[in-house]
């Protein structure tokens, strides 16, 4: 072999991510559900409420990680099935998990990119300062990876129609947003509301962001971080397993 397996896999992972970024970032479903949708949803709830930027920003970032991260994945595999590029990928000297991780990384970078713009905009133009940069960075990385994994897991549905996957994704994403304590802090939720919100990984991401920005978090950042990481491992692992089961059923 001319190249070691580790180097080969790293190179393949980079190439798959690059391909996804180049092709899918400009696709309209990705832009609509990854950029437009979270902003519209956020402003629909935030406008007219007497809240400071410091209180609003963790919610906006939470929604952005959730929607942007999970916007790219649902599109890639069904589209590649339809256009006939999937079978060629399956015939390459590449384990299938690399293909899935490459798809996840595309969502990860998309989510991070949007989050960085929001963070910089808030800092430069609105003067919103961070009290823990490390926590902000850590949350951004874990949340982006988790939600990109979720997007990829949706795409394991063996169909060649991206719209089918988008429908499945939205039927899960929308209810999750409303139980995640984004617009109402956890401390102000009734008991049953709090219990419900613990089901959603977005809750823990927003709690960590609140800790990073204003320190008005309800859960300890350590506990929220541990649970968020647990979700991330579960979802990314699940995405790989689901795709391994369904990839060859697509061809």
């Amino acid at each position: 072999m001319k190249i070691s397996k580790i180097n080969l896999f790293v190179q393949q992972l980079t190439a798959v991510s690059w391909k996804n970024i180049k092709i899918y970032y400009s696709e309209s479903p990705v832009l609509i559900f990854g950029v437009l949708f979270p902003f519209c949803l956020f402003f629909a709830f935030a406008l007219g409420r007497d809240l400071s930027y410091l209180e609003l920003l963790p919610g906006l970032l939470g929604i952005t990680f959730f929607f942007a991260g999970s916007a790219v994945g649902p599109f890639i595999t069904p589209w590649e099935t339809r256009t006939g590029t999937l079978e060629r990928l399956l015939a390459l000297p590449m384990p299938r998990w690399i293909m899935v991780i490459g798809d996840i990384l595309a969502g990860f970078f998309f989510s991070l990119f949007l989050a960085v713009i929001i963070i910089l905009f808030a800092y430069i133009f609105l003067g919103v300062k961070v009290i823990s940069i490390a926590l902000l960075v850590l949350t951004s990385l874990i949340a982006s990876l988790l939600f990109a994994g979720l997007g990829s897991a949706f795409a394991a549905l063996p169909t060649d129609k991206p719209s089918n996957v988008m429908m499945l994704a939205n039927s899960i994403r929308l209810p999750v947003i409303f139980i995640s304590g984004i617009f109402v802090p956890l401390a102000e939720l009734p008991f049953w509301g709090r219990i419900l919100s613990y089901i959603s990984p977005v809750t823990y991401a927003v709690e960590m962001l609140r800790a990073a920005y204003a320190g008005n978090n309800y859960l300890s950042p350590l506990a929220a971080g541990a649970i968020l990481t647990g979700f991330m491992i579960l979802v990314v692992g699940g995405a790989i397993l689901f795709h391994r089961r369904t990839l060859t059923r697509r061809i």
Partner: protein
Amino acid sequence: MEHAIKINNLHKKFGNIKAVNGINFTVQKGEIFGFLGPNGAGKTTTARMITGVLKPDLGEIDLAGYNLQENFVEARLEIGVVPEAANAYQELTALENIKFMAKMYGLSGENINEKAKELLKRLGLEKRIKDKVKEYSKGMTQRVILGMALINDPEILFLDEPTRGLDVQSTRIMHEIIQDLNDKDSTIFLTTHNIQEANQLCHRIAIINKGRIAAIDTPENLKDTFKELQTVELCLEDGDYPLPEEFKYISQAARAGNKMRYYTGNPDRAVKELINKIENRKIVGLNILEPNLEDVFVELTGGKLKNEN
């Protein structure tokens, strides 16, 4: 002679359907090996198992000296694949498509760019390497797809219906490229149901039917095996042809336009019988035809080939 591909007892079931049922064959290095079969015979399933896209239920696959199941990555580094209904990334340029594949095969360094350009030049696409593939014609896209399978200089090239849907000119270019690759010692595994293509390009042909190999040999030997498929082609002015049951040396007959083809193992005797039978009626044409590959195919698979090109 060294083998490039060795298949041993390959099986694959989908539910209760046995798509591939105990296939064995060997492809020698430097050979163009045709894999021919009607729709649903199991040829694409076999090709997918050999290229590692599908996992066989049973059987061994050896590619370029590597056992595919045990050395998955190493074996696939030695092959190039153009799957059935393959496509290039429409939103990328031809150069980007080729470079993407180069990286997937572990090629690195500055020479990737040069190598990709050189390949595109060989495929006659040098003037449009920076155009997005979506702006290409079908024939040009098919050449990009082939280029994507060639960037790693594969020891074995798998082509699944490479000329499907192409016009005559593009098909001819594709055939020239395949021939040229083979001249440079590449082994080519060509899955097709275009009999003419198989006859023209392949050193040996395997005919698969109902998940089993029905025959493997050179096109010439396959035709020789079916001597009884020689044909006497008769054209009568009045178009009123005698039935095969009326003759001793004719086994069957088939209408071909305004002519009738009489199948026989002894064309000289069959002609004599025909001449005696038609007596003074006007003969427009009379030819003796050797069996062609299509006749062999039909005989082996028990049905007419559906040409989907």
